[in-house]
């Protein structure tokens, strides 16, 4: 499964690249080069006994990103992680405009997960968990608070998104044979039992 991800803006990092690194390499790197354009990460996970490759596109913040890049990269995504920083109120305030853009440029069925990152820094919290939950409920998103530093909920966030996409494939909302959705039936791999190995592409949306 491919999962494209949007990550981080210049100067204001909400920790998108860190989340990705935690998920793919299981490590935390506090000092990170700024993402230019898009970086990639990939990891194999297993859902319902099926091997799925998540391809995560770690993109720059949508506000910093050129409109051209934005439409190109968001088009072929099956899901997105929308990340804000719980210690920076303005990253949360940008969510609405981001969501509008994402919905406009992407597949309408795209699974979007809202993530409040840096929940280890509860002392400096500016956005309450309830606010995030309310926002997610209002816009039909899945919500989770994570910490790339302590790895809390990081796995769950990615895997739940993948599970949601997988569910949509099962329901027939996404057609895995159509690559426009960012989902590919992978080549033969380590799971002879199932035969089907959908790959999907999800975008992780960063917002700050």
């Amino acid at each position, binding site marked *: 499964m491919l999962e494209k991800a949007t990550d981080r803006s210049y100067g204001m990092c909400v920790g998108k690249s860190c989340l990705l690194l935690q998920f793919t390499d299981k490590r935390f790197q506090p000092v990170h080069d700024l993402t230019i354009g898009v970086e990639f990460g990939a990891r194999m996970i297993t859902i319902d006994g099926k091997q799925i490759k998540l391809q995560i596109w770690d993109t720059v913040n949508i506000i910093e990103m*050129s409109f051209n890049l934005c439409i190109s990269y968001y088009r072929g995504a099956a899901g997105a992680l929308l990340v804000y920083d719980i210690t920076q109120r303005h990253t949360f305030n940008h969510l609405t405009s981001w969501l509008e853009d994402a919905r406009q440029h992407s597949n309408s069925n795209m699974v979007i997960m809202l993530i409040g990152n840096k929940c280890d820094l509860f002392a400096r919290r500016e956005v309450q968990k309830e606010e995030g939950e309310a926002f997610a409920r209002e816009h039909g998103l899945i919500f989770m608070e994570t910490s790339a530093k302590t790895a809390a909920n990081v796995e769950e966030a990615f895997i739940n998104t993948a599970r949601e996409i997988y569910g949509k494939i099962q329901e*027939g909302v996404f057609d895995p044979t159509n690559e426009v959705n960012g989902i590919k039936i992978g080549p033969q791999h380590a799971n*002879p039992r199932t035969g089907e190995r959908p790959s999907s592409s999800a975008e992780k949306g960063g917002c700050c």
Partner: protein
Amino acid sequence: MRNYRTDKSEEEFESADEGSNNGWTNSIDNNNEKKINVNHNGAVSENNTSLVQITNDLNSVQIQKDIIKQTPLSDTEKKNVASASTKDWSIWPTFDTKTGINQKTNDRLNSVSLKKDPQYQDSSSPPSSSAHSDNDSSSLEEKSSDRYLNYQQRKKYRKNRCDPNNDDSESNKVTTRPSRETTARDDKSTNNIKKHHNVHEARRLLDHLSEQSPTRTPSWGQSWSNIGSFLSNAKSTVNTLKSSVSEGFSAVIESVESSLGAPDPEQLAEMNRMAFKIKGETSDSETEEPDAQQNQQDSVTNQGGWLSSLSIDKITTTGMQIVSGSLDVLETVGKKTFEAINEVDPELKGTRHLLKGGQQDSVTLSEIIRETQQQGDNNDLSKSNHNSITFTRLFEKNQGLTHLEALESLSSQASIKVQTFDYRNNELLEKIAVYFDMENDKREDDSSNNEAMNNIENQIPNIDDLSFKFTTYQTQLRSTVSMDKVLEVYQSAHEFIKEWDWMDTALDQKTLHDEAIDCLAILCSHIVEYYRKTAELFLMGCKSLTAFSVDVELLKLFQKQQIDFTNMLSGIPILFAKHMKHINNVPSNSIKNSETPVRCAVDYKHQLITDLFIQSTSSLTYAHDAYCLLKPVIQQSIIYHMSAITTLNDL
């Protein structure tokens, strides 16, 4: 199973109507009706109507012949048509209610999101008493049954046209009809009878045929039952098709009769049987049953047997026409069926559910395919575990394909933009495009570097030269995209060869080979990444005038750079291949102190080297593709900046 059903329908029929003149046709219709009712009633009957239209075309040949040969009979024909339709109407109540019930069952099923319903499954053979008791039908049901009526009428009309003498002979036939074939054979034999107007002879013939039929029942009937409930409506349409095509065959027989003198009924039966086998084969091929194939072979040999004694040309050409015609009909039926199902049930949820429920104990085509695919996958997997280090696999592993995908999406977006630009820019666009046409340069290279190419050393670019070149390009282009990764890989490839004292063993050779492909994959993936980042830089530059862009003249640098990339990519296999050949000598020197190093077989080594070069070509292709993908992005960027500057100047 089949016999049981036929009996059942007979009983029903007899209880409903004692006028058994049309007995056998009615029972067929009953059969059809039952099958049709299993799935969406209205849709399929519509289908059948269209099928009848098609098959009528097929029959027109026969009918024409009938008319020519039997002009005195045409009056009775008309009568029959008229009488048949009135008879049909007398039977309708039975059909009507039955259709209504089944339709209702279907409706109920649909409403409960097609839950598995025992009644639904039983609906193929409901007790006739209940069928009569339930009489209230909604307007929708009436509509569908009307359609069905229409279909039945047309079908009967056609049947009656085909055998105008059924009043004379049909009464005898009600007793024996073990399978569809017999009916077809009856059909054909009535054609015979109508020539002689001899009821007794007809009876004799029929008895003869009915004696033969049980032994001659070919295996297609069994295979059909094996399929289970796999699209039973398709089954019914195919059945109808079969009977109709058999009529087409009787047309051939007619023509043969007229030109060669009538062959005896046994031969005709043989021919009909053949027709069924061929058709059975075409429709049963989904089940992939070996005996079906055998049947076909049998029929083919039979064909050679007695057909050769007759006028082969005539029979085979007409036969082929009919067979191909019937295939066309099958195709149309399939398409129509899909359309019809799609209309009723756009997401195919209901149909899927039906198939799921019915297929529990039967094997389907898709399952077979899936199993085969899995087996293939397993084989591939075991193979790949052994010895396949393919470039593509490693390229994917190193995210090369992802970079390429990203670059592709950027490029396609840009090319859409470029197409919307003013045509005045065409000249400029072409000017830019020249720099991306690598074919011309290759020729130049070939001629100028011919001598140099002969020397292998010159084909492997030097690292220092490369890094100097790349730094120059970067400063001139003002590009911020780093080249370090590309150079790093290239350097590591050189170091890899030097860092170990390689022996000429199969293991060492294989390791070198694998390493070479790995290097190629990583290098290629970095090159694609470089282009992707450059494309991003250009596109981000389209935001403001001060941002990144290049002049058309500077594109030459990109071209040169691409040539360097290509040289690097082709340099790696040359470097490794040279070394792999070179280490040929090493074990021969060390042979005196140890007998262990087993020399690598020359064949194996050549195989490895050849494989290396073959794999390297795909890396060149990827790099070249990536370079070409940059074209629309650069075009967009340059045109954006040019037009922006001219508007500024105008102001």
